[in-house]
């Protein structure tokens, strides 16, 4: 029984929590940015896949690690642009278009990977982001080993939380983005372009989603595997509602999810053999559904979410 509690005192557990949470932080930030502007982006799962592969491939072909990050973000923004053009000016169903973007991004990625590497038994590897050494804090007991396992990519995720929170709540641009997801008519009346703001927000959000994928291949692992995203994108959509579209709460939700996932991985080795491993693997998905159902009643959805806007039409 104490073993189950002991896990919480291991630095390794907390390090893993942050590592598992990092791609989700990017994903939830990306999803909430799109949704704050009124566009649901179910392309997220495919954009994760595309970001993971393109960022990794760029580094494999010789770009520096941060170059790979940039490539992933660009690819994400490109898929975001496609989603935005189809759903914003053309007003197509955001649900079905998003699923289409996921199918397209996933299949294009897998096809591209197979073209680049027709017959490889083990996936080729790259030199991933090295662990950071933080001065002073890194030498502390317990905290030191937790921080000592993180990379600069994780730091970027935390920076993004702060930047997005600041932009959304303290700048005129953030105000415009929030308004375009709540009351597009008012934005139009201010002389701003609803279509332009929405397309921009979806592109930026999709770039963030792609970074979540790239973190997996450039920092958490050092290779690209088929099926490595495995529903992480969908989990982010659930966590976005849980986070009530706020960057700070998004960080909290992702860390909570990371802790749960890290915990189930560790408890498996203790309870293994008695309880089937699949039960533990189901927990993160069940947790996401539970989180969604619990907050759904009082969730404060952006009022114009999924409502296409056409100029001069009420």
């Amino acid at each position, binding site marked *: 029984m104490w073993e189950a509690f002991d896990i919480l005192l291991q630095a390794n557990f907390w390090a893993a929590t942050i590592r598992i949470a990092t791609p989700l932080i990017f994903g939830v930030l990306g999803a909430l940015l799109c949704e704050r502007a009124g566009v649901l982006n179910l392309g997220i799962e495919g954009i994760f896949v595309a970001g993971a592969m393109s960022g990794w491939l760029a580094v494999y072909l010789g770009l520096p690690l941060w170059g790979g990050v940039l490539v992933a973000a660009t690819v994400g923004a490109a898929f975001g642009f496609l989603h935005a053009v189809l759903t914003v000016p053309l007003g197509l169903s955001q649900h079905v278009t998003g699923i289409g973007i996921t199918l397209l991004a996933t*299949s294009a990625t897998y*096809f591209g990977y197979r073209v680049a590497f027709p017959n490889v038994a083990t996936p080729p590897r790259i030199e991933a982001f090295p662990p950071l050494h933080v001065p002073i804090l890194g030498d502390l007991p317990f905290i030191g080993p937790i921080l000592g396992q993180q990379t600069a990519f994780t730091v970027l995720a935390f920076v993004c939380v702060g930047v997005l929170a600041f932009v959304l709540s303290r700048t005129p641009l953030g105000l415009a983005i929030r308004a375009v997801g709540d009351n597009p008519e008012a934005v139009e009346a201010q002389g701003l372009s609803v279509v332009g703001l929405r397309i921009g927000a979806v592109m930026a959000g999709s770039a963030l989603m792609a970074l979540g994928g790239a973190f997996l291949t450039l920092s958490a692992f050092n290779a690209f595997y088929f099926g490595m995203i495995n529903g992480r994108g969908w989990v982010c959509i659930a966590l976005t509602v849980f986070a009530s579209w706020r960057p700070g709460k998004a960080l909290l939700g992702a860390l909570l999810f990371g802790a749960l996932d890290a915990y189930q991985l560790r408890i498996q080795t203790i309870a293994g053999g008695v309880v089937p491993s699949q039960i533990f693997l189901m927990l993160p998905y069940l947790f996401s559904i539970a989180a969604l159902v619990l907050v*759904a009643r009082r969730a404060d959805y952006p009022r114009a979410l999924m409502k296409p806007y056409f100029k001069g039409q009420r």
Partner: protein
Amino acid sequence: MIRFVPRERTPVWLSVAVSIGAGLAALLLTAVPLALSGAPVFTAFGLMAQGAAGNGFALAETLTRSTPLIFTGLAAAVAFRAKLWNIGAEGQLYAGALATVALGAGLIEAPPYLLVPLVLIGAAIAGAVLLLVPVLFKTRFGADEVVVTLLLNFIMLLFVQMMLEGPMKDEMALGWPQSAPILDDAALPKLVTGLRLHWGLVLAVIAAIALHFFINRTVWGFRIRAVGENARAARYAGLPVGLAMAMVGAISGGLAGLAGASEVAGLKGYLTADLSPGFGYAGIVVATLANLSPLGVVPSAIFIAGVFVGADSMSRAIGVSSYLADLVVAFALLCVLVGGLLTRFRIVFVRREPA
């Protein structure tokens, strides 16, 4: 100046033309990555066509592959008509497959005319129950069904793996995680001896016709369409919206469950965790390509099945990755969405008056 003018009615020929056009456009778009990969484009498409419908055997294979796609396509079509975004047909398919094995692998012994319907009903109920949970979450708690149905797919697949490694494991299968085979009395017979084509196809087509009449000719069908077009107006008009949603959920989940039953009882004979290569997700494309018309789902499923079968055969012949098929499917979905604008709007060219 181009203006979009909403159409009062959409002629049937236009819907059909848009679907066919979208399919062709998807193939055309796929030629770009195919050419970029350095493959011979015309040879590849030629081999795909040949592999999908080049001879009787290929055609039978395409029809076999279309069977689960008709079921999942119908599941998506009826749900999307009511704006119930069921993205969980993959999980519901596995629920149906599990029920098929649970009932058909020796639990009950009965003659085929009893056992086969029993197994099918069991599978439909299993699929329906799996979708009624998110429908309940939606109507009771306001939880978005898209995310819940998507996540249930992953949970269901893990549950299948657990059953196949545990209680349902076939001890005769030499450690391979697969279920015991179903009884011969529970199997759907083959349509033609020597081919893999089975009675599941006939059931799928019957289901499509039945659903067509249900949606277009019955009171409940009308209510479902009304809820889909404007849920608030439907509620205001006194329609039982929650009940209609539950009914759509039961029908949609049940159809997806039948896809699993038909694959197990008609084709494989036992259950493995790789029973479906994404039939549930492809069903969304099938339904959208058919403009959500149940009768249109049948040709649309045959087209998508042909793409998959043809790509497999082309891949074996010249080594181009069969992920090409998934690309065609993704492009087809996006193309038909854009093409759908033509069915909903008339495009009018207006000459701008000189100022």
